[in-house]
């Protein structure tokens, strides 16, 4: 299967777009008509063909342009990529995990040739052909974590595990939903989750931490999370809030279908073998409201979820002010018919919109 890579931007003229195939495989995050926090973890071991769950690290049509956007963010703000000194071994673990996974899962795009510690890595979409010595930092242009995360979509948090807790001790974070690696670096699991409303009271984080501490080698896990973004911006960071926050006020009933995007994070969790650290890739997928509405099930469901969401969550996710306008738009796609369970669009079986 060949991927046709888009030439597109996530800033200024926002030429980002999803092909029909990309819309069909969009990871719609709601499996029923309402939403509340849950430790909604499942094993990350493949999924339906061509879904975002199929490969260990999904590569899609946005790959080349996303990597170009990451390089721009890092050039402007090098602190988006940080690794505390004890995390270098985990960086090599991550480099190995991604290179092995991508070369096995996409042999037409990536090649890895290993002769002992002499490694040869070929990344065809980005035009990279490098030979280096595994575990010798001086043979790479960047540290191992930065080197490989400049070639992998999504943010990467590399968490040290000690003292029955997880610590945000390394990461590359340029496509985040309004949180800052530079602020969170060195924090533990409860510290970096402190701003999240309602979930603490429900004991979500205690249970989630227990689950994550027990993730084992060879048994990765995954979950979906979501928020809303006006314009297809990857970099919605606190550092740049002055640039993107104001864009939330540009929404009108005329442009909301193309400007308002549902932002979904495919979060995965892998135990790293040599360091016993945990890597937490957070892969961001964007889809405009008007593209989502091409699946009648998603149209019905998104309206009901947004309508019934507690105010605290709409505030935390940053769209409480725009919610009335969203509901005016979305209600046109909700005819009150029941929806089937699960996140998939079921285009062949779900009835078309009845109004």
């Amino acid at each position, binding site marked *: 299967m060949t991927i046709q890579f888009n030439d597109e931007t996530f800033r200024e003229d926002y030429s980002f777009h999803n092909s029909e195939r990309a819309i069909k495989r969009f990871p719609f995050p709601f499996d029923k008509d309402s939403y509340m926090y849950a430790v909604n973890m499942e094993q990350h071991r493949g999924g339906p063909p061509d879904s975002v769950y199929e490969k260990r690290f999904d590569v899609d049509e946005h790959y080349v342009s996303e990597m170009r956007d990451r390089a721009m963010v890092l050039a402007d703000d090098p602190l988006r990529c940080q690794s*505390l*000194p*004890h*995390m270098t*071994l985990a960086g090599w673990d991550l480099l190995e995990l991604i290179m092995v996974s991508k070369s096995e899962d996409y042999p037409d795009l990536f090649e890895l040739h290993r002769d002992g510690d002499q490694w040869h890595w070929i990344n065809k979409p980005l035009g990279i052909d490098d030979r280096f010595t595994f*575990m010798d930092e001086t043979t790479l242009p960047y540290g191992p974590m930065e080197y490989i995360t400049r070639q992998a979509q999504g943010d990467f948090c590399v968490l*040290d*595990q*000690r*003292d029955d807790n997880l610590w945000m001790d390394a990461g590359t974070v340029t496509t985040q939903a309004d949180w800052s690696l530079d602020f969170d670096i060195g924090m533990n699991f409860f510290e970096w989750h402190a701003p999240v409303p309602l979930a603490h009271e429900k004991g979500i984080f205690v249970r989630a931490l*227990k689950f994550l501490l*027990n993730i*084992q*080698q*060879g*048994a990765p896990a995954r979950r979906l999370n979501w928020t809303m973004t006006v314009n297809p911006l990857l970099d919605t960071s606190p550092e740049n809030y002055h640039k993107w926050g104001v864009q939330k006020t540009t929404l009108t009933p005329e442009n909301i279908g193309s400007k308002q995007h549902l932002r979904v994070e495919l979060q995965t969790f892998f135990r790293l*073998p*040599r*360091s*016993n650290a945990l890597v937490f890739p957070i892969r961001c997928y964007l889809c405009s409201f008007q593209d989502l509405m091409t699946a009648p099930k998603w149209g019905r469901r998104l309206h009901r979820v947004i309508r019934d969401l507690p105010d605290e969550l709409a505030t935390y996710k940053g769209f409480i002010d725009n919610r009335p306008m969203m509901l005016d738009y979305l209600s046109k796609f909700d005819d009150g018919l029941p929806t089937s369970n699960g996140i998939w669009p079921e285009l062949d079986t779900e009835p078309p919109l009845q109004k």
Partner: protein
Amino acid sequence: MSGAEKIAVRVTEKAALNDLVTRFRFEPVAGGLLPTFSGGAHTVVEMRDGEITRLNPYSLMSDPFDQTAYTISVRRDDAGRGGSLFMHNRVNVGDEMVISNPVNLFSLDLRARKHLMIAGGIGITPFLAQIKQLDRAHGNWELHYGCRSEALGSYVDYLTATHPNDVNVYYDDQDQAIDLENLLDGQPLGTHIYVCGPKGMIDWVRGKAAELGWPREAVHYEEFLAPKPGKPFEVKLAVSNKVIQVGEQESLLEAIERAGVDAPYLCRGGACGMCETRVIDYAGNFIHRDHWLEDEEHSSGEKIMPCVSRFEGKTLVLDR
């Protein structure tokens, strides 16, 4: 399926080190390479002994970067429930066995400026892997290793030959003992302590470190408890609606599994917390033996760790 991922292996070496300890080498049946691991990790070995299946954890002692084979060392426990005797007497070169993917509950704190290792007896095994990991990264470490006698000093010759300046050995029968207070007192800032050995040794090191003001996070320990035999007892499993008998020589977890109920577990040694089970009703006394639950939880009668803990009394109903 509970527990870590499984690997089918063949025994390719069985070497008696001394009267008590035998080393086993495992290579993958399917060929290819085993996963790498981090020093301090263990594997859970499945032993099929007729009707009984035992799953015992053993520390991996081989080089964590060597993917061709794993090695473990098993100390014979004549008074135990039979796992180590099974390994010593019944397992032979060429046998196929099933082991789990590596799990690490005793990993190095890589922030440490220096790693101070204190081992007692068979507790030496995780340090053998950690030393190989640290040597590759030019890490700063020092080992203090207590053995009963020269004859029972597993791997002493290897360690003193390869690291004459970093390894200190103490023999009980020669009245040698670690001068713990002075040892801890002389450590540079940023040192982490790791202790693996009998419970008495772990308590002694932790107690002394606390007394000297060491931060709790800088003291690491691992003690695998083997489940102890005990009086048989009856348990009702409320969710699966079964009444099971726990035999004298089996653990509560093993009895639950024997009844066909899939219960979560990882370490099977009272350390990881994975098998924590809610008690719905009871009349009798718990024999808690795990390191996981807090004292208040032990006395609450609301939770039990079925991998190592038992019960004596009339009624026990579990949420399983």
